[in-house]
């Protein structure tokens, strides 16, 4: 029994944190909002260079062959920085899917390119109506009728769907099955797709705890400097307790997320552990957004304040891949053994 990360896991996390601190301050996120594709200018190549993009890929394909326990902390950092890149879709979902698919020239080629960053992957799972960054991705990994397809970007029909978070570029996507390559189908595909949903959910949870951490930091910073009634508002018990509660919720969410990564790594108790992670992280992030906004007052209610970049990501991700009610319900079906989980997310 041991519940701690290794020095190497922390080292990788620190390296990514330091890079993002330097290269992805809020100004970069803000610029991504205004950009054509909702993304940053140069972060993708830096992430590739650090080995992040292919972290979950086999070494033979140029990856680091890492497990969820190795990468979960990175997603927390992506949340902390509100990184405007398809990391969740590419390295959190698509690369693990490709890694699990049977080798083939098409699969191998795109997986190699995914590790170098030459390819940018996004995913279309049947449970989710929207595809992120479909305009700037080079390939789509798509679930259709229980099979897994690889589709080149040029073959996609895109309808933009604007998210509250302008760096989440959403699309409804169509493609002609004739232009897609089958990567897996039937009994081969089913467990891969099931695992993909769990990965997406778990990594969303990790991003949410990172977003909450930054928002709480911003609340503490603002409350420590903003003065009203002749003193810092952070001296008022109402402000103190609001931030303390937000912090508490996130502090209890974080180890639950790590437990989810453990469950995925060892394929044990996956549904319950991943749903626990998503339920706590979603609630913690929404609570943090509301508490920190309230702490800021009107200034937090403008797009001039960086807070909104983090809040809006949190509002979107808290509902992506099932909100906390859906996941509590799924846990309930396991714990109480009273029927199947709801199909509708």
């Amino acid at each position: 029994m041991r519940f701690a990360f290794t020095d190497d896991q922390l080292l990788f996390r620190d390296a990514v944190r330091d890079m993002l601190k330097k290269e992805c301050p809020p100004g970069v996120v803000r610029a991504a909002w205004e950009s054509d594709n909702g993304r940053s200018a140069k972060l993708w190549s830096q992430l590739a260079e650090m080995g992040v993009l292919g972290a979950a890929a086999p070494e033979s394909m140029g990856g680091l062959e890492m497990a969820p326990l190795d990468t979960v902390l990175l997603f927390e950092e992506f949340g902390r920085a509100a990184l405007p890149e398809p990391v969740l879709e590419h390295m959190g979902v698509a690369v693990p899917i490709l890694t699990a698919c049977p080798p083939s020239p098409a699969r191998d080629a795109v997986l190699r390119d995914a590790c170098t960053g030459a390819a940018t992957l996004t995913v279309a799972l049947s449970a989710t109506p929207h595809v992120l960054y479909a305009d700037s991705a080079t390939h789509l990994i798509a679930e259709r009728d229980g099979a897994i397809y690889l589709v080149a970007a040029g073959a996609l029909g895109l309808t933009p769907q604007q998210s509250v978070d302008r760096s989440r570029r959403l699309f409804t996507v169509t493609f002609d099955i004739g232009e897609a390559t089958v990567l897996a189908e039937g009994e081969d595909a089913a467990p891969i797709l099931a695992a993909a949903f769990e990965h997406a959910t778990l990594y969303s949870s990790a991003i949410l705890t990172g977003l909450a951490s930054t928002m709480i930091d911003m609340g503490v910073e603002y409350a420590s400097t903003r003065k009203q009634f002749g003193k810092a508002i952070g001296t008022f018990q109402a402000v103190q307790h609001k931030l303390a509660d937000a912090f508490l919720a996130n502090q209890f969410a974080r180890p639950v997320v790590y437990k989810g990564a453990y469950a995925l790594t060892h394929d044990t108790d996956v549904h319950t552990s991943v749903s626990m992670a998503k339920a706590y992280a979603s609630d913690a992030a929404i609570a943090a957004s509301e508490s920190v906004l309230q702490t800021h007052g009107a200034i937090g209610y403008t797009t001039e304040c960086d807070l909104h970049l983090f809040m809006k990501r949190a509002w979107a991700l808290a509902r992506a891949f099932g909100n906390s009610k859906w996941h509590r319900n799924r846990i309930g079906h396991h714990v109480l053994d009273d029927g199947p989980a709801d199909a509708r997310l």
Partner: protein
Amino acid sequence: MSAADQRRACAKLKHVLVERPRRSNGPDQQVAGTGASRRTALRPHNDPGNTVDLNWSDSEERFRSEVRAWLAANVPTEPLPSGDSREGFAAHIEWEKKLFAAGYAAVSWPEEYGGRGSSLWEWLIFEEEYYRANAPNRVTQNGIFLLAPTLFEYGTDEQKRRILKPMAAAEVTWAQGWSEPNSGSDLASLQSRAVRVDGGWRLSGQKTWCTRGSFCDMVFGLFRSDPDAQRHSGLTYFMVPLDAEGVTVRAVERLDGDEGFAEVFFEDVFVPDTDIIGEVNNGWKVAMATASSERGLSLRSPGRFMATATRLIDLYRRSGCSDARIRDEVIRAWMDAQAYNITTLQTVTRMLDGQTITAESSLTKIFWSDMDVRTHKTALDILALSGELDEEAPAADSGGAWLKGYQFALAGPIYAGTNEIQRNVVATRVLGLPRK
């Protein structure tokens, strides 16, 4: 009261009961099916109307029908663009002019100022119908609901004649200028200055969070006219044209992307004495009267929240959602709107009885602002994965109105005095807990 006094009181009570007219049962006073005849509630015999009576009068019902019919015929079928954007503001002004022409811009005002002299009850009915019809947000509301009550109480006859009718007619639009960068919750710490000059004052300083300040014609707010006075003292209430010399307006983008806010900078701006409301250095008291309106009855009528609850029920039904926890939240949203309405009926009765509503309005502010956030969160839970879509997304439900509404609702616990300040007020002024 001694036991003997109590007995006397009860004897008097029985006397009243014996004297009063009995069993004037209309059909609605029968308990259906019990077979027992039913008593009306106890009434003093000299004032048969002086009891709880939740029926609208015939004339009130007629008023409702008229309003409903007019709105049905005139509310734009397609929602206007946001009134907090430049093009939307213009479209809303057109709507407001139509409303004024029909006599509905400010129903409770005297006719001479552009109203129709309606009662507070009729005003509630109007609001109910207005929100029920999903009519456009009122971009004139800072004038009509914040400034006008102050003018009615403190304005000169000349000011009322000059200002109110153009306000109701949406010919002159008003922004509020309460906050300053360093004075939000602590409004009494305002630093913008007013310096006496011949025939008036020169204003300097900065106001912020001026709603729709980029589009409005005028702003009203407090300025420090006596630099030696402390905090609440020495403030004066001014009205200033936003195109006056020395005024600079900078738009500030709101959370939802609209230019809903503005910062207004004042550099030696001349304002004549005739544009002061109330007495010089008495602005705090004048403003508090307005703040009380803002928090209390006028800004957030029950009709608004009842309409939101109705739309939530509609969304819930359309969604095919079968989650009993979400269903419970939908019910609670409906109940809260009803409870808010019931409380308002009690408050309006008190006001009509001549009582003043002061610190208790803080309770109301907390209730509706928290309710509004909860209600919109429930809607986003129903929308689930598509809850993040905004008005530009083709797949957004109701044109992204719930997401925009959530963002707007999040401002509720902040503006018009944060809910923390309101809870302080409840604790110290209503419950009497010690301040120090």
